[in-house]
Each structure stands twice: as C-alpha cells, then as structure tokens.
C-alpha cells in the first residue's frame, strides 16, 4: 500500500492533492462530482472582511492552453461566510483551508483572529497575490515588506497554520518567499495567476470588462515549475505547487522540483472530479516505481 499522506505546515493531509481557491467555491457545488474523502483538502474561495460583488462581466475568456479570469473576489464577506458557508464546509470529510484577503495588514489580522475562534478550520491561506483586487492582494504580494507585515499580522492573531499564496508577477519571487518566511508563515502556496489580457479586434476592446485578468491553466505550468524550483532551493518552508496541474504526471513534476503538496485549479472546470483522479494516479506511479512514501520524491530533481 502506497502512503500518500503528508503533513503540510502542520496540516495533516491524507494525500498531497488539494483543490485551489476560486475553483471549488465553498465546497457545495462539487458534491455531485467529487467524494471529499478522496482529496487531501480544499481551499475556499477568498473571503474578505465585507461582502464583495466582484467585477462586471465578461469575467473570463479562454486563451491558448489557458484562461483569463477577472472575477474580482465575489464573496459573502467574513460574517456571511461563517453564517452561510462554514456549516456545510465544517462537515466535509477533508481538510478545509480558508483563503483570506483584506485591504490592510490590520484587517488581515482581524479576520485571522475571528477565524481562529472557529473549530475545524485546518489552516489559513493568505491571498497576497490576487491580480484582480484593486485594494489588496497582489499590491501586498509584489512588495517584500508589505508581504512580511501582512503575514506577521495574521500569525500574531492565530495559532492556525498560515500559508502565504504568492504571485508570479514580481521581479524576484525568492525575495517575497524569504519575506513571508521572516513574517512567520508556516508554508507557501505558489503560483497565483499571471496578469494577462485578451483583445477583441472587431470591437477594439479588451475581452474582459476589467481589461486585464489572471492567466491560469496548462499555459502557466512551466513558469510555475521554475518558480517552485527556485523558491524550494532558497527557503525552508514547505511549498504547495500550483499552476496548470491537470493530471498525476503534472503533480509529480511539481513534487520533483520541491513541492510537498499540490493544488489543482483550472483543470476542475473541464473535469470536475480531476482532484479525485490525481491521487489515484499518484498511487499507481508509486506502486509501479516501488516507492513506499511519495514524500521521498520531493525535491529530488537531478540537475
């Protein structure tokens, strides 16, 4: 029997496959397709202190081997989340990591303090990387000092594991990774989407109402792999690899370059149960190659 279990930054995972924020809602919509017991965990859609409407449509468009989104963090806010979304999430047979974002470092801390009081949350993922948030997200994640201070505020307010989600839209991602390590993060998830745009030549307009959006899907996998590799070499924090993972082979690539766990995002849009298929594929790979513990592969890339 292959052991896929791991402990990621203090969160015990039955396998290293987690559904990424913004691609699994607040769990409910996946119920017809995915047995939660087959997943390592899920990360909720970002919640902010107050409810948000999100951006005007069009919010998404398909591009070559990927898609752009500019949803704009439509979410029920912290209170709405706790009242309407958490009761369902709390009953799921998988680890639930709550993704948070806020306009200031202080408000990140206040959200963390409130969530610290809630039983059953596995950890917090701090969204300092959304390219679609005009008052936060990537604004913090592009700056080492701001990244550090947001993570510090969150860590001060909670004993939950704190995962910093990094943006690739920076000159040197290693510098940001070191900053969140200094801030006290227990883990890193990377990468969020790359800023991109699509143009309609008939209308001579950007397809997205928000003009720019975040690129995700297979198109960004090579970028994500290179960044995970760099950060793995530079910091000691465990990494959840994200970026275009659509099957077990993709997940293994991320583990070889240093990811202890992975998040599956855009692939779920086309194949709703892909998150359940990947652990099976990982088991098969390990069985075929005589690997007892999948964690023995992490960071073993030969160069």
């Amino acid at each position, binding site marked *: 029997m292959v052991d896929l279990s791991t402990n990621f930054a203090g969160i015990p995972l039955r396998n290293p496959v987690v559904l990424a924020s*913004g*691609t*699994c*809602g607040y769990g409910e*919509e*996946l*119920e*017809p*397709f995915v047995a939660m017991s087959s997943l390592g965990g899920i990360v909720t*859609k970002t919640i902010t202190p*107050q*409810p*948000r*409407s*999100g951006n*005007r*449509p*069009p*919010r*998404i*468009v*398909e591009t*070559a*081997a*990927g*898609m752009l*989104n500019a*949803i704009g963090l*439509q*979410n*029920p*806010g912290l209170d*709405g989340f706790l009242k309407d979304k958490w009761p369902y999430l709390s009953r799921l047979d998988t680890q639930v990591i709550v993704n948070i974002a806020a306009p200031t470092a202080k408000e990140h801390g206040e959200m963390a303090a409130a969530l610290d009081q809630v039983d059953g949350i596995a950890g917090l993922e701090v969204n300092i990387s959304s390219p679609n948030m005009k008052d936060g997200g990537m604004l913090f994640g592009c700056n080492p000092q701001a990244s550090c201070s947001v993570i510090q505020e969150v860590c001060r307010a909670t004993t939950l594991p704190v995962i910093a989600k990094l943006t690739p839209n920076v000159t040197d991602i290693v510098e940001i990774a070191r900053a969140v390590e200094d801030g006290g993060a227990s883990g890193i998830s990377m990468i969020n989407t790359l800023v991109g745009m699509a143009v309609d030549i008939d209308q001579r307009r950007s*397809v997205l109402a928000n003009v720019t959006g975040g690129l995700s*899907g*297979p*198109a960004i996998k090579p970028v994500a792999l290179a960044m995970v590799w760099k950060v793995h070499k530079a910091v000691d924090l465990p990494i959840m690899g994200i970026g275009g993972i*659509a099957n077990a082979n993709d997940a293994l690539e991320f583990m070889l370059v240093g990811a202890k766990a992975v998040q599956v995002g*855009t692939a*779920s*849009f*086309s*194949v*709703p*149960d892909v998150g359940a298929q990947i652990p099976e594929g990982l088991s098969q790979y390990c069985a075929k190659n005589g690997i007892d513990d999948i964690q023995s592969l992490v960071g073993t890339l030969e160069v």
Partner: protein
Amino acid sequence: MTATHHPVPRNPLDENALVHSTEEVAEAVFLTRLTSPSIAKHIEPGQFVQIHLRDEAIPLLRIPLSVAAVDRAGCLIDVLYEAVGPKTNLLSRLSAAASVRCLGPIGNSFPAPGRHQRVVLIGGGVGLPPLLFFGHSLISCGHEAGVDLLVGARTAAKHLDSERLHRAVSSVAIATDDGSAGHAGLVTELLEQKLSVAGVEDVVVYTCGPHPMMRAVASICADSKVPCFASLEEYMACGYGVCVGCVVETKLAADRHRSEYERYSRICVDGPVYDAAQIIWD
C-alpha cells in the same frame, strides 16, 4: 395566471456521450445528435449541457450548448450550433461513434406558461435551440393557446428550413438583416407588430439570442406589460457554479436587505432563464 414557476434544478452529472450523427442544417449551422442516456432522460427545455471534447490543453474549456430536441426513449439529445470557433468546428467534424463527456442537465428551465397564455418565442441566431425544444414540448403537451415562433438571422442561408421550424410550433415568422427572406429588418420589429395587431392580453414571451436583441425584447415587453423570460449566455468556464465567471447583474442588489455578494447571479446554476424584468440590461 402567469408563468412564474421555475422548477428546482436537479444535480447535473458528467457522462460519456457518443456522437450519433451530425448534419449541416443551415450555412455553418450544425445539428449534432448525441447518445447521452441520463441527460436525455432528465433534461428540460431551457437547460443546457457542457461538452468536453478531449483531455487536452487546447481547447481547454468545455462548450456550453443548449439542447434543441430530445428523444427520451432513444436516449438522444440534439445540440444545434454555429461553427464559429475552434471548439464548435471540432465538434462539427467529429465522426459518428466519437466519444465526448457531457455534463448536464445544467441550470433551470423555462417556466411553464399558464394554460390560456399564448406563447411567443423570439430567438435570434444561436438562441434558437432552447426555444425549439420548449415549443415542441408545449405543442406535445397540447398547449391549446398556441405557440408562435419569431426568428431572426443575418441572412436566408443562416435560417433553418421552414419544415424543421414548423415542426416545433404553431406558427413561424422569420426576419433577416439583409432582407433575403421574410421580414427585412429586426426580429424585434416582428414582435412589435404581433403585439400591436394581436394585443397583449394573455401573452407570455420567451427569448434567447444575442444580448442586444434580448435587451430590445425585454424593453418592448416591459412597455407592453407582457411577461418575458430570457435565457442568457455569457463566457463560461465550469458550468456548475464554482468559477463564478458567467454572471449577470440583477435588480436584487437594489434591495437594501441583500448583500453586495448577491449583485451578480451565476447564469449556469441560478439561470440561464431569468424574468427579463429582473435583469439589468446594460
């Protein structure tokens, strides 16, 4: 009595479907018949499916397509689409017995009209399929008050043949932008004529098509105090509610008791059929 009841949608499922046949029914407009047993059994007029052509990076996302007809006993659904992009072109070229994944039924369905309500279906371009399914199901159920179809297209070659249209409804009137068939002009002009000649008493309108057409239909119906239901379309990624990509702004947000979170409604799971008076048609 007015058409207000929206049936509660059932959970969609993702099943293997086989291409039964594909036919070009108008210029670059294809009808693909799929063997999709569970969806054929449950789908209602107005609901749609998300078709996954293959597990590759290009194309990445599924194609959302409305169902134009169903053969429940034969486990068949018909999707009708214009081959305009890579995905619809690919679908149109799949050979018989090719396998695809089909997610559905998705979304709500057209609310049933009152027994005495005359039904006017008004569609343009790719908006026709769900109206054909709805019209046919009303006629099959013996909707005696009548079902009139108004349909617009750019040019005659884009229209389905008249026999195919008449099969689904009691009467058909067509319009073309270039005047090559039927009324020369907008299909919405046919609606205005119809309402002015036949009156608006006991009429209910259902529409699906390009956004500007539906906006005009909604406006005509609002002015005439005729109930109107619109089946909307938007760029879509998942089709089951998680991505929150395919949204429309509704008037719900004007209600002070509602949160900003509810300003935009997800067309895939909360729609695609809305009371046209509840939509902000910018």
